[in-house]
């Protein structure tokens, strides 16, 4: 069968004229870091935190493993682009270009139909935010992270940078120095947020760095589902997206964090995500990567206390000129903890997908369980898939299992579906959607449908 190497069919690649009110010059310096902090009117501790992080960023080497990032030029990026002075909780008062962008992306409509609250970030800052009144009354906080620093300084300072300190890795240090925007979610004890909160991250500017910072705190017995999506215009110059997401799951609390990443093919997506999970708490990452030029992302969980649970369900589609290096990380520090890392990847048109995962079980984390499964589906002869599962287990009384499959779509499968009238292309799509089903069934229905539509657009068949 012949292979096709067509470009991605990316319908979010439009851009709007630049209407930003401030743009830092290209490149990064102490002066720019100070400037960002000054423009935001931050307390002095945050200014010092940023400067300290900047030094760490400069001192740290690029990662010696994973994808080659030598084409990423730190001097060719705008680190801060302020889109507007008019933040709002009313779409119609936003600048026209910005409102049109989110209309085109269908965010206001989704807000009406699906979500309990919505945050929308445009370049460096969140421009729109809303939360249903009944949740506000229950004490749920859903704000952009800049606003949270001002309005809830005590909670903020208690958790910020505690799951992922600046020294964690070079990109976490970079984010810590220049962070801007992102979501702050606080769910009080025993409160259940029944419908998901959504954040949408849009890059509009050329050669832009987006560094949102998200902090989620789920108090004991609470429950929340946060969902994020993103996109960007297609430019010939590279952009960088480097977020830090920190989550604290308290005793018996449950957090689900769903990501549908659909950056344009010129975006480096280098993200650090970590959750700390207390007794009988449960953290679940659903991590979908369809877009970007290069993604390196391994959502992780530190299981700190007895019975804590972690699930990482990830799927990736690597198309032409894309590398998706994704997976997960589980750190078991207490007895009776469990982790499950499942990955489904699809490579087509010369794309490359890499599964990379680590499970570490500390001495005395007795009766812990971990399972790792990765399935890779390769749609043509030019595309690649690699898997790097890794276990470091220092306790004998545990159960650790691992499965992996790498395969192509079988001729018999295609023939069977085609014998009922499906074209080869549609048969391929049906097989791919079945392959992803164990993960898509965990996503809210409306999103799963949208995701299927996206995948159908992207999957070209043989």
């Amino acid at each position, binding site marked *: 069968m012949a292979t096709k190497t067509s470009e991605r069919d990316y319908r979010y690649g439009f851009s709007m004229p630049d209407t930003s009110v401030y743009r830092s010059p290209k490149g990064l310096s102490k002066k720019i870091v100070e400037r960002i902090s000054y423009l935001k009117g931050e307390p002095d501790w945050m200014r010092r935190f940023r400067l300290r992080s900047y030094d760490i960023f400069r001192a740290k080497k690029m990662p010696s493993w994973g994808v080659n990032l030598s084409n990423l030029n730190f001097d060719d990026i705008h680190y801060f682009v302020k889109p507007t002075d008019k933040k709002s909780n009313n779409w119609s008062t936003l600048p026209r270009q910005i409102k049109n962008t989110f209309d085109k992306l269908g965010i206001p409509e989704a807000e009406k139909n699906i979500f309990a609250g919505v945050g929308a970030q445009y370049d460096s800052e969140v421009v729109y935010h809303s939360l249903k009144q009944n949740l506000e009354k229950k004490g749920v906080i859903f704000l952009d992270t800049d606003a949270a620093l001002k309005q809830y300084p005590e909670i903020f300072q208690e958790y910020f940078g505690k799951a992922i300190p600046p020294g964690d890795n070079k990109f976490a240090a970079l984010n810590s120095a220049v962070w801007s925007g992102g979501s702050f979610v606080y769910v009080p004890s025993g409160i259940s947020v029944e419908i998901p909160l959504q954040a949408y991250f849009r890059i509009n500017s050329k050669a832009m760095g987006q560094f949102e910072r998200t902090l989620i705190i789920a108090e004991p017995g609470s429950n929340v589902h946060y969902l994020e999506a993103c996109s960007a215009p297609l430019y010939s110059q590279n952009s960088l997206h480097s977020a830090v997401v920190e989550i604290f799951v308290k005793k018996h609390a449950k957090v689900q964090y769903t990501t549908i990443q659909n950056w344009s093919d010129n975006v480096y997506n280098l993200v650090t995500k970590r959750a700390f999970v207390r007794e009988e708490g449960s953290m679940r990452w659903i991590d979908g990567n369809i877009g970007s030029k290069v993604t390196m992302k391994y959502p992780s969980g530190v299981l700190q206390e007895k019975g804590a649970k972690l699930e990482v369900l990830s799927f990736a589609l690597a198309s032409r000129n894309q590398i998706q290096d994704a997976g997960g990380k589980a750190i078991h520090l207490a007895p009776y903890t469990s982790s499950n890392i499942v990955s489904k990847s699809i490579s087509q048109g010369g794309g490359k997908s890499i599964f990379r995962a680590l499970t570490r079980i500390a001495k005395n984390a007795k009766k812990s369980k971990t399972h790792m499964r990765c399935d890779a589906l390769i749609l043509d002869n030019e595309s690649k898939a690699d898997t790097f599962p890794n276990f470091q287990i220092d306790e004998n009384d545990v159960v650790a299992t691992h499965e992996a499959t790498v395969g192509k779509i079988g*001729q018999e499968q295609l*023939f069977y579906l*085609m014998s*009922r*009238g499906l*074209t080869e292309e549609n048969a391929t799509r049906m097989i791919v959607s079945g392959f992803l089903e*164990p993960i898509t069934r965990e996503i809210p229905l409306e999103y799963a449908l949208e995701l299927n539509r996206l995948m159908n657009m992207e999957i070209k068949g043989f």
Partner: protein
Amino acid sequence: MLKIKNLTVASEGKTIIQDINFRLRPGETHFLMGPNGAGKSTLGLAIMGHPNFKIKQGQVLFRKKNIAKHTTDQRAKMGIFLAFQQPTEFEGVKLLDFIKAGLGALWPRRELHTASVRKNIASTLQSLDMGQDFFDRSLNWGFSGGEKRKSEALQLLTLKPKLAILDEIDSGLDVDSLKAVAKAIVRLKKNSRTSFLVITHHSRIARFLKPDFVHIMVDGRIVKSGDKKLIKRIEQYGYKNI
């Protein structure tokens, strides 16, 4: 409906079917019988356009059209259906979604709402003695032999083809299930005037579905054709000595 003319089929250079001929008129039911490895299933797969089986000589004419150049999905759209002896398994593809996709492909202009499709198939499921939860299971995934037959029968009854090739639809079914499947097929034959090519090495399905013609295939050749009395002779003498 279907005319097989001097047909020779090979796979990986090896001839499997050698110079066979027969003609199936609209509304007729033909049985293709023979021992294991005679090439019966190959004929079904070749008619459906399986890429492993190449037509070396001769023709397959469907409604007077040579179908050699048509892809498998085009043949399905022309009205040919193959009930597989060994259906492939698909994890994560819901049976209902698959049937819906098939209906959409065969009748692109018809409005297909999942709810109405579900309702229409529900009665078919009932006639096959299948629970309604069958809808939501993954296509053929972990199905028992009997469930696989019923899944094929369900697709046949829903897609209502002009020509149905049934490859061993009777194997692996208990007596009650066989009866239910056969009855549903007979009803389809009556209501939709579907023609049938039934591949089997059992005579028991003939009790329900009466053949107009019977062909005996041995070592890739049709060694004898006749009416349903031929089945009796096979029961007596076997394929070798007929």
